């Protein structure tokens, strides 16, 4: 009898579909997410005594494959860091050290920033990295035709102009003071491209961006890996790198392994020397057997944005009730273990400068309070399933989320716990996983399309509040305001904080903003977005995560037996 099914050969089309999805994302990357960081235990001074060897290939398994190598998504910054140098680098929580800029000064009115550039630096295509090249990059990022959405989100409203004073002096003029400027510049989105490469078509830049960094892209095999080769003339490492010369290894094989169990297996079987994002179930073993680098990403943590323009969350009592109904701390500990931490503050992650710790317990688990608030809000009767009703309508909210992209498997476990906890107070939650195509396609991101959505925005500065919570207005839309919460007072407070120089006054203003967001329950804090590396120390040494947003750094790394 003939089988009604034909045998399948699925790999090529899968890859093509992924590429199609990737293409769709490209447009959106402009608004996706920025990033930044501070480290909890990464150390650049790992093997002070051991002498690095030369040669060999680093085998690295990363998780997410971005649609292009450079761009405005944190996943792009991770990988493009291997190719680019930036003006400055960050150490710890907000300390800025020289990189391409050896010195900088700012005018009294805080509007003119002058950077002295390292002389004699060349891009890997031979272009000189001089002040003209830096200016070409700023012009390119902010040109409406080639805009980098993340760069624009940070400095778009502040940037006035830039000029090359001479070959090694670059000047940036702002419209109003912006104190987080240097922190923002230390992120990979501000990596410097060669001016010639910026004239190439977008699809060429997407695959092979050209920088002055420690590695050069040889080939990107979509769906598999990016092959990097060493830049043999590298002479422009940041001050906080141990190795100031070219990389020790010959090659870096950056693979994309999306499945957590497979990625972990590739480390334990010796196929890779280092992997990204240790699965929560494997943390104990990772800590016992491998070197673990954990980085708690600053910025907006993973929080649940509540759509305040639409029932049921247009009622602040319902928003607060949901926050009280969820035992988020227990749920996060169960789902993530050590892979991420509970973050109750809905505005900033605990590793962000100016984070306000007093908001951590603003809504401690209290089902009685939740029930009382829902009763007050008029959701006082219950249907046969135990779900609260008002005027015959059940109390129900849809949470949609980017499954496997924004929310990983552990995050999905967490959402199911929260869903069940909400049910205990008669609040029905429906979970709706979205594919990347749907998530970034746009039709699912309007004020009418969802009730709540989890998300993050990595950033090394509290200035991210302005990016996320600036009002979403007709003439000035803000797609990052996923709660659709428009509050002129909040926007003013954050704007003042961004332009203030006095640290105490700035802290007070940023705290006021965080408190406002928490008091309004416009979002509910869930967990820290966390980057981790597990490194096989018997094979590989001196890999670290940098501090602006946890980009892996391989220019110091060397193989024990190359």
């Amino acid at each position, binding site marked *: *009898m003939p089988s009604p099914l*034909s045998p399948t050969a699925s790999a090529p089309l899968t890859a093509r*579909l992924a590429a199609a999805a990737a293409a769709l994302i490209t447009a959106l990357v402009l608004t996706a997410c920025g990033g930044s960081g501070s480290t909890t235990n990464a150390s650049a001074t790992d093997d002070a005594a051991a002498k690095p060897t030369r040669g060999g290939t680093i085998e690295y398994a990363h998780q997410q494959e971005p649609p292009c190598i450079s761009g405005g998504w944190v996943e792009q910054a991770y990988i493009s860091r291997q190719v680019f140098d930036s003006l400055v680098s960050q150490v710890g929580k907000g300390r800025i050290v020289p990189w391409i800029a050896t010195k900088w000064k700012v005018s009294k009115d805080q509007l003119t920033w002058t950077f002295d550039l390292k002389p004699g630096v060349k891009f890997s295509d031979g272009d000189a990295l001089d002040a003209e090249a830096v200016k070409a990059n700023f012009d390119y990022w902010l040109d409406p035709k080639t805009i980098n959405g993340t760069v624009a989100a940070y400095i778009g409203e502040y940037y006035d102009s830039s000029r090359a004073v001479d070959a090694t002096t670059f000047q940036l003029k702002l419209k109003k003071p912006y104190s987080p400027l240097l922190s923002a510049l230390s992120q990979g989105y501000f990596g410097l491209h060669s001016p010639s490469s910026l004239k190439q078509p977008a699809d060429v830049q997407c695959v092979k961006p050209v920088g002055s960094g420690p590695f050069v892209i040889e080939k990107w095999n979509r769906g598999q890996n990016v092959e990097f080769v060493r830049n043999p003339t590298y002479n422009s490492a940041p001050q906080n790198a141990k190795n100031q010369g070219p990389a020790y290894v010959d090659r870096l094989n950056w693979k994309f392994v999306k499945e957590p169990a497979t990625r972990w297996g590739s480390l334990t079987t010796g196929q890779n020397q280092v992997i990204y994002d240790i699965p929560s*179930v494997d943390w104990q073993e990772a800590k016992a057997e491998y070197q673990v680098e954990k980085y708690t990403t600053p910025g907006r943590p993973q929080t649940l944005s509540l759509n305040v323009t639409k029932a049921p969350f247009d009622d602040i009592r319902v928003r607060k009730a949901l926050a009280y109904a969820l035992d988020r701390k*227990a*749920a996060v500990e169960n*789902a993530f273990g050590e892979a991420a931490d509970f973050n109750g503050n809905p505005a900033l992650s605990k590793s962000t400068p100016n984070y306000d710790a007093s908001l951590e317990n603003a809504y401690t688990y209290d089902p009685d309070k939740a029930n009382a608030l829902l009763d007050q809000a008029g959701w006082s009767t219950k249907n046969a399933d135990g779900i609260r009703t008002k005027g015959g309508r059940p109390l129900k909210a849809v949470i949609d989320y980017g499954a496997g992209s924004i929310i990983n*498997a552990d995050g999905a476990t967490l959402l199911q716990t929260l869903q069940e906890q909400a049910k205990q107070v008669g609040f029905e939650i429906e*979970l709706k996983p979205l594919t990347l195509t749907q998530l970034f396609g746009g039709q699912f991101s309007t004020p009418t399309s969802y009730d709540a959505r989890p998300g993050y925005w990595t950033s090394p500065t509290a200035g991210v509040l302005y990016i996320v919570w600036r009002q979403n207005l007709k003439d000035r839309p803000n797609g990052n305001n996923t709660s659709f919460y428009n509050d002129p007072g909040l926007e003013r407070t954050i704007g003042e904080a961004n332009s203030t120089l006095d640290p105490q006054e700035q802290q007070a203003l940023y705290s006021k903003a965080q408190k406002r967001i928490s008091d309004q329950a416009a979002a509910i804090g869930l967990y820290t977005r966390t980057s981790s590396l597990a490194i096989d120390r018997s094979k590989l040494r001196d890999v670290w995560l940098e501090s602006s947003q946890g980009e892996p750094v391989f220019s110091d790394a060397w193989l024990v037996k190359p």
Partner: protein
Amino acid sequence: MSTATPTFSGGAPTPGAVASAAWSRVRTWRPGLVLAGLVLLFFVVAAAVPSLLASGSPTDIDLRGALRAPSLEHLLGTDQNGRDLYTRVVYGARESLLIGLGATALSTSIAVVLGVSAGLAGGIADAIINRFLEVLFSFPVLLLALLFVTVFGASATTQIVAVGIGTAPGYARLIRGQVIAVRDSGYVEAAGALGHSYARIVRRHVLPNAMRPLVVVVTLGVGQAIVWASGLAFLGLGVAPPSPEWGALLDAGKNYVQKAWWLEVMPGLAIVAFALSVTTLGRALQARLEGGTER
């Protein structure tokens, strides 16, 4: 797909008449068939009235009891949220079976329309439908399904449509071949010679005879459709959590495969047991309908 029908060969008991009598009884009982029937009954009850087989709720969480191995308290263990896996497998039967039956029903409907039209019409219509089927054939089922889910999002309906359309061309070809064979057969020619109308011939002779093999293929197809749907869910393209649909259980369990094997093995066994049982019954049905003896 292989069959679970037991084959008894070699090593059969030879000494003594008692053994031989017992042997022939076993042969008539066909324990494989009985077992398949019981398994099927279990899952049909699970799908219809799951509370008969499991007392708890499939979504009740117990964070302190997460990832417990199978025990008397939790027959199949618990998952990462402390939910009882046995309860979830039982409650997952409804959605899994619905997807399997729905996909098969859809593909059969499409196939009957296309296959019968092509077989009866012949000529240009036949050629057009055939080319169309060949185009559909050139897309492997899984890829067609992936495309569907990517565009329309993951849900039970998408899975039914994706698998249904994906498997339809195979059935359509089968039906077309049968219709042509019956159409050109002696008895149809005889009916025509007796002056029966075209509609009557199609209704009384062509359709019933052409559909007969389909009954078997469709029975086998249900099991296969469930496997396809589970495959999609395993890739994260299935129904939304916290549904205990079997493929979704597999998908959720795969990250724990080294630390909590039961999360992957138990739902897998449910899928295998169901698919094998349906296949076994399908083979038996085939043997009965073809009038031959079962292998």
